């Protein structure tokens, strides 16, 4: 499976959701598509699924343009919050419909998962709560076993137990039936351990694409007395620096590959690893962050 974006731009009126995005995703992997709100994640996934067409540039999947492609449509499923099912069908009938539409759909697995999560199969999709709807959608996506499975913000509204169980099932399914899985989101709790690759979008552009572990290793959090943190930070590329307690500070720094960071622990400095979520947020944060915005807005009052 290969998904190829070449100089793809997507506009909604005057708003540009994607700007000349060039990205190649290949192989059976779990890939994280990360970015802040409005970064273009959902647009990219909808273009890959053939729901939207690019305003400019080319997208190719299985040798075809996904928009209006029966082949791509049959080998792809996009799970998102707005996913709609025939309104007159109960959940058990929707599963039967999915089984007819997707030859590899595992109805037994889907039913067992619904039972486990306490979702009654005689209910209508529209009757479910937000969390249950998203759980059902994700179960449908997992059980469809399409070569390209995409989840756009799949865990929204779910409680911690359901999130954790679904991610375990996703990993088990991936191991048993390898495929390309794209997971997009900005709340990565529990998801980031699954990623083999990460793609970071920012303002519709590609900011980073590479191995997830290597990306994470490129960031370090240092904390300690503010003067020492500032001194240490002056020698490296700082993405974020803020006060934690009076006289104490914390900084997220970017370390070039192959660089060794020496910290003098005697000065009270501590270095810890940075989660993927914190790393990409620091990478895409405006200079000064919210502290600067608040200070500027309330200055002189």
């Amino acid at each position, binding site marked *: 499976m290969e998904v190829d974006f070449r100089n793809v731009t997507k506009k909604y009126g005057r708003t540009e959701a994607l700007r000349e995005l060039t990205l190649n995703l290949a192989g059976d992997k779990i890939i994280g598509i990360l970015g802040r709100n409005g970064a273009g994640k959902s647009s990219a996934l909808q273009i890959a699924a053939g729901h939207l*067409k690019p305003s400019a540039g080319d997208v190719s999947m299985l040798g075809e343009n996904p928009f209006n*492609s029966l*082949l791509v449509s049959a080998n792809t499923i996009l799970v998102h919050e707005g996913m*709609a*099912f025939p309104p007159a069908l109960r959940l058990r009938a929707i599963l039967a*419909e999915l089984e007819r539409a997707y030859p590899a759909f595992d109805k037994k697995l889907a039913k067992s998962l619904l039972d486990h999560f306490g979702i009654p199969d005689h209910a209508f999709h529209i009757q479910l709560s937000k969390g249950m709807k998203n759980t059902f959608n994700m179960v449908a996506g997992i059980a469809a076993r*399409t*070569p390209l499975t995409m989840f756009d913000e799949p865990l929204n509204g779910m409680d911690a137990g359901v999130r954790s169980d679904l991610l375990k099932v996703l990993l088990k399914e991936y191991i048993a039936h390898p495929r390309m899985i794209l997971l997009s989101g900005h709340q990565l709790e529990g998801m980031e351990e699954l990623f083999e690759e990460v793609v970071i979008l920012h303002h519709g552009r590609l900011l980073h694409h590479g191995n997830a572990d290597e990306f994470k290793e490129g960031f370090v959090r240092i904390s300690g007395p503010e003067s020492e943190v500032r001194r240490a930070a002056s020698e490296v590329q700082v993405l974020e620096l803020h006060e934690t307690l009076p006289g104490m500070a914390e900084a997220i720094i970017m370390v070039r590959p192959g660089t060794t960071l020496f910290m003098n622990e005697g000065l009270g400095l501590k270095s810890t690893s940075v989660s993927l979520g914190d790393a990409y947020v620091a990478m895409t944060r405006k200079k000064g962050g919210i502290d600067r915005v608040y200070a500027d807005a309330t200055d002189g009052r």
Partner: protein
Amino acid sequence: MSTLTQPTAGNAVRNQFLRNLYGRSGILGSLLALQVIGITLSFFGGSGFGTSDGQITINVVDYSANPVIGLTLLWAIISPLYLSGRDSLKTDLTFPGSRTTRHTGNALYLTALVLAGSLVATLANMTSILFAVIPDHPLILPAGGSTSHYVSLFAVLTGYCLLLAAASYFAGTLFSVSRIAAFALLALVLVFLRVTAVNELVAAIARFSGDGPASMILLRCFLLSAFFFLAAIVAGSRQEVRA
């Protein structure tokens, strides 16, 4: 390693047809409901008048299946708007298919329902005479009543219902693709009507689809319907839906 599915257009059309049948039962349900209402209205009769000269009172009640036919035609205008709307497309995009297979499946589904609806309306017309017999009142039988009369009624009703459904489906598709294009087309039609005068246009349509034997009316309506469905496929081939 994941295995690719090689879909066929025929299978996608079949699935679309069946999904409409099972998953959009409201469309079939609305047809049945309207026809039941129409049959009920036919049973009680209508459009009657009464006269009296002091000694004799005459009440004339017209029993006909006109309400069933009228409501079936109304259904043919309204239900395709739902089927061609954005919500329906959003649901359809959850399942494998292209815009072409979707529209083809929808067109076949509407055709099947139009056939069923016309058949029910024709049968209602046949049995409307019985409604008059039940109350045990004097009866004046209408002209016609032969098999060929009912076959002609079925053919003409099917033709007009299909034509209305196809035109409505095209309008719904165009409106959900581009409201500007839909309004522009409507404005163009209105300008065209003013230029050519309504009567001439209606006469031209009537000459093409409403003149001659029933089989010719059905054939011409079928051709016009095919044109509208094809236009919907062309207009809808660039249709997008944002999640």
